[in-house]
């Protein structure tokens, strides 16, 4: 008897003392339920504060047929919901015949949701949902990115800054009855959500729109496959416009589209390409910075140059004869590029190339950014011909962002700035502003000035007449790059590009235009330079930058 009582007492002690915590927790989990309160996702704003993406509350309308009285009220439900959801009665009636819960409508506005709620229809449940709106439509789609069904950022700024935009989920803990329903006036604790931060971008919606319109026009006119335009402020590294085409429209996004990845990626950050002659700006800067070449340098161009067993030809198979550095830029002389690279020497050439930020991710906040690829003399596969071809932008790959940032460094007196897209974060606990950041000095101010002057002189002598803007001094370079294919280069596919900055004496805008595979003419001067001119001239007028020369 005593033994039995002892066992009972021991069991009681075990349950009440030793396992107290576990059983309390079990009991609480049975008694308490919890539901999430999804916070408002932060808005993405243009530089002027105008929203580009904003979240608004909407409702999904569900029908639960097993809810008491729901099955018998199908006719009434269909009749009352039809005018509110603007759907045919028969269609709704058919949908409600389902055995399980069925989604009748999504994205229902709050006013309509209030009317549905007031109708007290059995089995009808309103599920609040945040929905992304784009007041500027598809503007800057690939830059903004999009969010998935679970409201998580999947690409672009939405993905890069997802933890900030998403905020913190809140929770409601409540006492529930045997059926799991909340007990009215029972225990209730609310852990409120924290709304996501708003992001103010550096993008200017006017410049962005102009750049998108001009690129679209050129892609259509030349039946090109894709294209990129970047507009950057060289003094700060702020990205004023980033256009990537083709692009998905975030307002009509089809998550089941098999080509979605190609349409949502921001090609300005992700796509590697051989920059071709636009890279000669870098070759020129490296040569002048090395001190072995000065602006008075002359060379002889016989139309080709021998590099080991290889012969490198002028792009148009012509010979310039005696040439200077303006001729090198003006005629985009490959022989001159090889000459300058050899005079610079591989050590100094590649040091400057790397210092310009090539083969380096420039902003760790851009999660999708890809680093370019440059073979170095220390690599086992590097040979002399690499130095020669790299000098005119072949056998290395860069992203449009890398090239724009590098040329912006020349425009900025030799200082390489970190490119950035987010200017300000407006979080519930305060505002954080981003200041322009200098990555490093790449070339001296004097070298930068010399490069600018040579580019201006070449432009004045007609290196790219289609890019010229009357009244403004322009520093720029065209590029017509071959596209690598197999072991060599495609004979039919080209990349037409132009990169330049205006006004050359005090640069405010660096603009890169890159157009892939135009079907009519391949030349940068015909395909890309006019886009540069249109974007630059409209941007100059928009910013009220006066001309510095009398239009000729």
């Amino acid at each position, binding site marked *: 008897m005593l033994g039995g009582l002892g066992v009972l007492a021991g069991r009681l002690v075990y349950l009440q003392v030793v396992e107290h915590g576990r059983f309390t927790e079990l009991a609480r989990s049975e008694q308490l339920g919890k539901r999430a309160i999804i916070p408002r996702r932060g808005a993405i704003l243009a530089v002027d504060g105008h929203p580009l993406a904003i979240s608004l509350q909407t409702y999904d309308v569900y029908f639960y047929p097993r809810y008491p009285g729901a099955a018998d009220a199908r006719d009434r439900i269909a009749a009352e919901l039809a005018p509110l959801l603007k759907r045919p009665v028969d269609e709704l009636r058919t949908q409600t015949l389902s055995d399980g819960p069925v989604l009748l409508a999504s994205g229902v506005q709050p006013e309509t949701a209030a009317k549905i709620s007031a109708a007290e229809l059995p089995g009808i449940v309103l599920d609040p949902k945040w929905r992304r709106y784009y007041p500027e439509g598809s503007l800057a789609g690939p830059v903004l990115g999009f969010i998935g069904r679970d409201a998580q950022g999947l690409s672009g700024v939405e993905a890069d800054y997802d933890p900030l935009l998403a905020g913190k989920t809140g929770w409601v803990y409540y006492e529930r009855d045997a059926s799991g329903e909340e007990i009215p*006036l029972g225990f209730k604790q609310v852990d409120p959500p924290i709304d996501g931060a708003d992001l103010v971008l550096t993008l200017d919606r006017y410049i962005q729109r102009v750049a998108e319109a001009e690129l679209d026009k050129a892609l259509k006119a030349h039946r090109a496959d894709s294209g990129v335009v970047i507009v950057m402020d060289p003094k700060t590294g702020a990205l004023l416009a980033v256009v990537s085409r083709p692009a998905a429209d975030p307002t009509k996004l089809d998550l089941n589209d098999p080509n979605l990845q190609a349409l949502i990626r921001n090609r300005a950050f992700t796509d590697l390409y051989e920059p071709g002659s636009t890279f000669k700006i870098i070759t020129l800067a490296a040569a002048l910075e090395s001190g072995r070449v000065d602006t008075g340098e002359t060379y002889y161009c016989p139309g080709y140059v021998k590099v080991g067993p290889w012969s490198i030809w002028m792009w148009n198979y*012509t010979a310039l004869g005696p040439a200077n550095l303006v001729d090198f830029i003006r005629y985009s002389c490959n022989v001159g590029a090889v000459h300058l690279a050899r005079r610079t020497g591989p050590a100094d050439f590649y040091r400057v190339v790397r210092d310009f930020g090539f083969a380096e991710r420039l902003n760790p906040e851009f999660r999708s950014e890809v680093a370019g690829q440059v073979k170095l003399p220390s690599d086992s596969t590097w040979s002399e011909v690499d130095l020669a071809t790299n000098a005119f932008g072949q056998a290395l790959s860069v992203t449009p962002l890398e090239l724009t940032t590098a040329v912006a460094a020349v425009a900025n007196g030799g200082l390489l700035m970190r490119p950035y897209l987010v200017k300000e974060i407006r979080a519930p606990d305060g505002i954080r502003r981003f200041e322009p950041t200098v990555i490093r000095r790449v070339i001296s101010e004097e070298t930068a*000035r010399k490069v600018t002057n040579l580019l201006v002189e070449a432009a004045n002598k007609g290196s790219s007449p289609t890019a010229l803007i009357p009244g403004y001094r322009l520093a720029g370079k065209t590029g017509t790059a071959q596209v690598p294919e197999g072991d060599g280069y495609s004979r039919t596919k080209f990349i037409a590009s132009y990169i330049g900055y205006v006004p050359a004496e005090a640069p405010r805008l660096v603009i890169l235009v890159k157009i892939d595979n135009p079907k009519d003419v391949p030349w940068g001067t015909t395909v890309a330079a006019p886009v540069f001119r249109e974007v630059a001239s409209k941007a100059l007028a928009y910013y009220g930058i*006066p001309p*510095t020369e009398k239009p000729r």
Partner: protein
Amino acid sequence: MAVITYPRRRQAAVAGGARLRVGGVLGFLLISAGVLGLISLTLSTLVTTQGYEVRRLQAERARWTEQTFRLETEISSLRSLDRVEREARTRLKLTEAKDRLFVNPAGALPPPPPPPSVRPTPEPDALQLAFDRLAWLRLLLQDVAAGLP
């Protein structure tokens, strides 16, 4: 030590007074408890009512905040560049500016930076240039001589 004894009547009066006092105290306590209970009930009802009111006002505030967001979004849509351009072109019959005139109050353009100190290109040697233009033939012959395809 002294023992005080009271007469029987006095003792009865004292006992009666004590009963009265106990009754009074009990009555007072009962009334107080009732009043306190009433106050507590009133307060609890008040708190519950206020709680409901607070929740109603919170819901109201959330609704108005949402409405503000909605209206701001509507304003943004109305201020969108596409719509502004459409209105300008169709309703106001505006066209895109072609020529821009910058007025310079100082009356002079800022001086352009000095030209680069580029050495002029020397006059090409006509014979050398002609020879260079046939470079492809020379290279071809070299390659043939070297037995390359």
